[in-house]
Each structure stands twice: as structure tokens, then as C-alpha cells.
């Protein structure tokens, strides 16, 4: 029992320590300045600690990744669950697991050497380290989550729903579109949310290929900097106990709260009994 409670303990502990270190930043900047300030110059004198550019950077990259990964991910889940022959299915599932297992720093590295020059050449940009490159790379990190959970959801639709639709003369596709997908919808929504959660929290790949410019992004073809990348890139240089250090922990709180909300909502969707 003690060990079961340990997991609650760790969640609370994580939150407490983030709060302990992070809230100190609000002694020097107000909450609204921190969240909606346009300037992130943490080591200028006096420091400007507004994380709006970082939030927008995260949102931009996340939306881009979602637009790419959701249709492809759900499509792939449907293919694996419904259409693929048994043997192909096993191979595809192994492939998806493989993708999930590749460390994000390796994907980031591959993105740097392949995707970044590609984006640069296609759009004739001064640099290929852009929000778009980040979105494409992150889409691949969200896909395993989306595919495996959506596939589970499709798989757990009772078999007689499908048989009923077939018996009424529906084609396989009509059955998938009108019966299977609606029946699995709450699981698919959860899959999409968890995929997006993965994208928002992803750090290394994003730091390596989005260019890390903490400015308000004007398009998807400029460098951006996300919340996670900011923490990872700057914590090494921040002096323990400085405003900068506290501000980075406050970003940690923001990330923790976002992931907490996504996970709780996704969990509600997953365990919703029809």
C-alpha cells in the first residue's frame, strides 16, 4: 500500500518543489506580466521575464504537429485495426513501437541533418531551424501515442456492432466511418489529447530544430522557442536562487499544470462508460 501511495506522493512532491522554487518569481514580476509579457530577456538588467513568446512558440509548434499527426495517426490506427492482414498488422505494430522507442535526441539529430536543410531549400529561408521543422518532427513523436491508443479504442468496440452493420449490407468502409469510429470516439479523443500532451512536453528534439529564438512568432517559417526548450537550454546557466532560476521553475509549473489537465481529461474520456 505504501508503494501505491508513493506514486501520489511523487506527483505531489514534484508539484510542491516546482511551486516552492517557482512561485518566488512572483516577488519580482506580477502574474500577468509573467504570463503575458512580450519580452523574455532573463539576463538583461533589469531582467524581462515575460513568457508570452514562449507560450506562443509552444502553441504554434503544437498546432502544427497536431494538424499533421492527428489525421495520419488516426488513419494509421484504422488501417492497423481494421484493414491490415494479420501478419502486416504485427509488422506495423512493431514499427510503431520502434518509433516510440527512438530517443528524442536521436530524432532531433536526424531532423537536424535531413529535415532542416530540406525546409530551408523548399521555402528559400535563411535558416531551416523553424517552427515548421519542429512541427513535423514532433508529429512523429506524437504518432505512436495516437496510433496505439486509438487502435486500442477501435479494438475494444464490441464485435457485434460491426457484425450488425455488415448484416445490414453496409460496406466495410461505411461500417468503419458510421459505426466503428463513432463508437470508439471517446478513446480516439483521448488518444489525440495524449499525443498533444506528448508534443507540448517534448524537449530535446524541439530544442535542436526550432531555432530557439524567444520572439513573438509571426509565421510558421520563423525560428521559435518553446517553454520546454527554454528551461532545458537556460537552466544550465541560471544561478541557483536568481530570478532567472525561479522564472524557469515557474515555466515548469505552467508545463506541469498543462500536462496535468490534459492527462486528467484524457483519463476521463478513456474511462467513460457508454
Amino acid at each position, binding site marked *: 500500500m505504501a508503494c501505491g501511495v508513493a506514486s501520489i506522493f511523487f506527483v505531489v512532491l514534484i508539484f510542491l*518543489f516546482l511551486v516552492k522554487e517557482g512561485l518566488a518569481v512572483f516577488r519580482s514580476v506580477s502574474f500577468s506580466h509573467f504570463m503575458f509579457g512580450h519580452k523574455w530577456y532573463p539576463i538583461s538588467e533589469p531582467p524581462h521575464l515575460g513568457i508570452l513568446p514562449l507560450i506562443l512558440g509552444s502553441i504554434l509548434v503544437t498546432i502544427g504537429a497536431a494538424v499533421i499527426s492527428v489525421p495520419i495517426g488516426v488513419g494509421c490506427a484504422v488501417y492497423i485495426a481494421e484493414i491490415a492482414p494479420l501478419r502486416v498488422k504485427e509488422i506495423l505494430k512493431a514499427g510503431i513501437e520502434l518509433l516510440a522507442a527512438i*530517443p528524442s535526441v*536521436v530524432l*532531433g539529430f536526424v531532423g537536424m541533418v535531413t529535415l532542416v536543410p530540406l525546409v530551408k531549400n523548399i521555402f528559400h529561408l535563411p535558416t531551416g531551424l523553424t517552427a515548421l521543422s519542429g512541427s513535423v518532427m514532433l508529429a512523429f513523436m506524437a504518432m505512436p501515442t495516437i496510433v496505439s491508443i486509438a487502435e486500442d479504442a477501435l479494438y475494444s468496440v464490441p464485435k457485434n456492432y460491426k457484425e450488425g452493420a455488415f448484416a445490414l449490407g453496409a460496406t466495410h468502409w461505411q461500417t468503419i466511418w458510421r459505426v466503428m469510429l463513432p463508437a470508439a470516439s471517446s478513446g480516439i479523443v483521448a488518444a489525440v489529447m495524449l499525443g498533444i500532451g506528448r508534443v507540448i512536453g517534448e524537449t530535446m528534439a524541439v530544442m535542436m530544430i526550432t531555432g530557439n529564438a524567444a520572439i513573438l512568432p509571426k509565421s510558421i517559417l520563423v525560428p521559435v522557442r518553446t517553454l520546454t526548450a527554454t528551461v532545458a537550454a537556460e537552466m544550465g546557466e541560471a544561478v541557483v536562487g536568481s530570478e532567472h532560476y525561479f522564472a524557469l521553475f515557474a515555466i515548469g509549473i505552467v*508545463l506541469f499544470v498543462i500536462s496535468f489537465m490534459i492527462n486528467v481529461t484524457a483519463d476521463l474520456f478513456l474511462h467513460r462508460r457508454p
Partner: protein
Amino acid sequence: MRNPYRTQAVAFFFLLLATLLIVVPVGLVVVIIVQKGLPAVNWTFLSDIPRQGMRAGGIFPAIIGTFYLVSGAILFALPIGLLAAVYLTEYAKDNLLTRIIKLAIVNLAGVPSVVYGLFGLALFVVFFKFGASILSGSLTLGIMILPIIITTSREALESVPASFREVSLSLGVSKWQTIRHIVLPNAIPGILTGTILGLGRAAGETAPILFTVAAFYLPQLPGSVFDQVMALPYHLYVISTQVPNVDEKIRYGTAFVLLALVLFMNLIAIVIRSKFRKKKKW
């Protein structure tokens, strides 16, 4: 009227396309890394220290560092995770506490890896004064892989049929003895799978070790758990973004070693799982 079979053919084509859009790039990533990384890997590369500001030499300290970190993480996470899984499957009643524990595990799994890094920095490095050390890094990674171990162990324990327990209990064996001698031995392959997946995850993560242990450049091996070490994923990050003019070969070689390590662990996990499935008597 539209021909439903034509619609179906078009739809299935797009579904196949979506699948290929995932599978082909994954294949490409692996092929690129193997093709360019494998020629760079030889015995010197694996057993030598980095030289000339990491532009030459090998990656031995990073391999050893990752080995220490992963072992430490599993030493910490396996006992706690396994006991938590036993509690949840065998003892926990379906009440509010259990619901909250499960939700906490889901949340632990979803916390961004860099937030684990922050947490490790605040708790282990600063508060407990362990400093940036193997101990801090291992504990941070351990907490990170806890949800993986709990979830997979629970699945393994739950897949042991209830009748096994009932027979054992009906013979007058105590609940703990039943778990110890009947349930756990039957769940070992599943637990092992989870442990190895956890190992793979811990070996590949960079963000949690950024501020808790990883050394930019440290050619000697650690002497105690309070020393910093180099680690493979961080080393790859450093030589591909922080150090200019590193030979491509070294970058690809490092990426290859890391990828091979992680995929090898996953492969073992998959093999154990499929063997177990075939052997299963119930």
C-alpha cells in the same frame, strides 16, 4: 448515386497512405543512422575517451555513464514499482484512494521530461545537496520510469488467471504466500518486459539528466555515486549542437550506438513477450 465500393477503395487508399507516411520515415531514420553510423563504430570508438574537445577519440565514458545511470534508476524504480503493482492488483479495493493512485500514475507518465529534470534539480541536487551526481540523476530517471514499470507489472499480474489464486487459497495457503509463490512467478516475463522497456526509456532520455548529472566533457570514469558522468544522449546533443566542427562520423556513430542500445533492449522485451505468449498454458 455514388458507388459505395468506390468510396471504400478511395478511403482505404488514404488509410494505407497514412500508414506508409509513418512507417516509411521511421524506416528511413533507422536506415540513415545505420548506414552512416555503423562504419564509424569500431573498437577504438567504443573503448577510447573523447579527444581534442570531443572532435576525435571515442565515447567510452558516455557509455559507462549511461550504464551507471540506468542501473541506478532501475535499482530504485523496480522495487517500488513492483510493490505498487502488487498492491494495486492484489490488495487495493475499488475505492477513491485506488482511483487517485491510478490517476497519479497516469499523471506521472505524462509529466514532461524536462519537468522531471527541474524536479530532480530542486529536490536531489539543491535540497538534499547531492549535487549534480549519479545519485541525483538515477533517482530522477527512476521516478520517471516508475509509471512504465507499474503499468506493465500490473498488466502482467492481472493476466494471471483468478483460478490460480483461488486454488492456492483453497489449499489453505496465505494470501502473501499465494502472491509470492503462485502469482509472481507466473507474471515474471511480463514484469521483465516492463523493466526492460523502462531501461530503454531511461537510457534514451536527455532532459531529466541535463541539470542533475550530465557532464559536458569528463574524460575520466566516476569514482563514486556523487560524481558527475557523461551520458550517451547528452553527449549526442552536445556534439551535434554545442561543439562546432565535429566530424559527421562521430555524430552518426554516437547516434548509432545510442539507437542500437535502446532498440536492442526493446527487441529483447518484444522477444520475451512473444515467447511468453506462445508458452502460456491458459
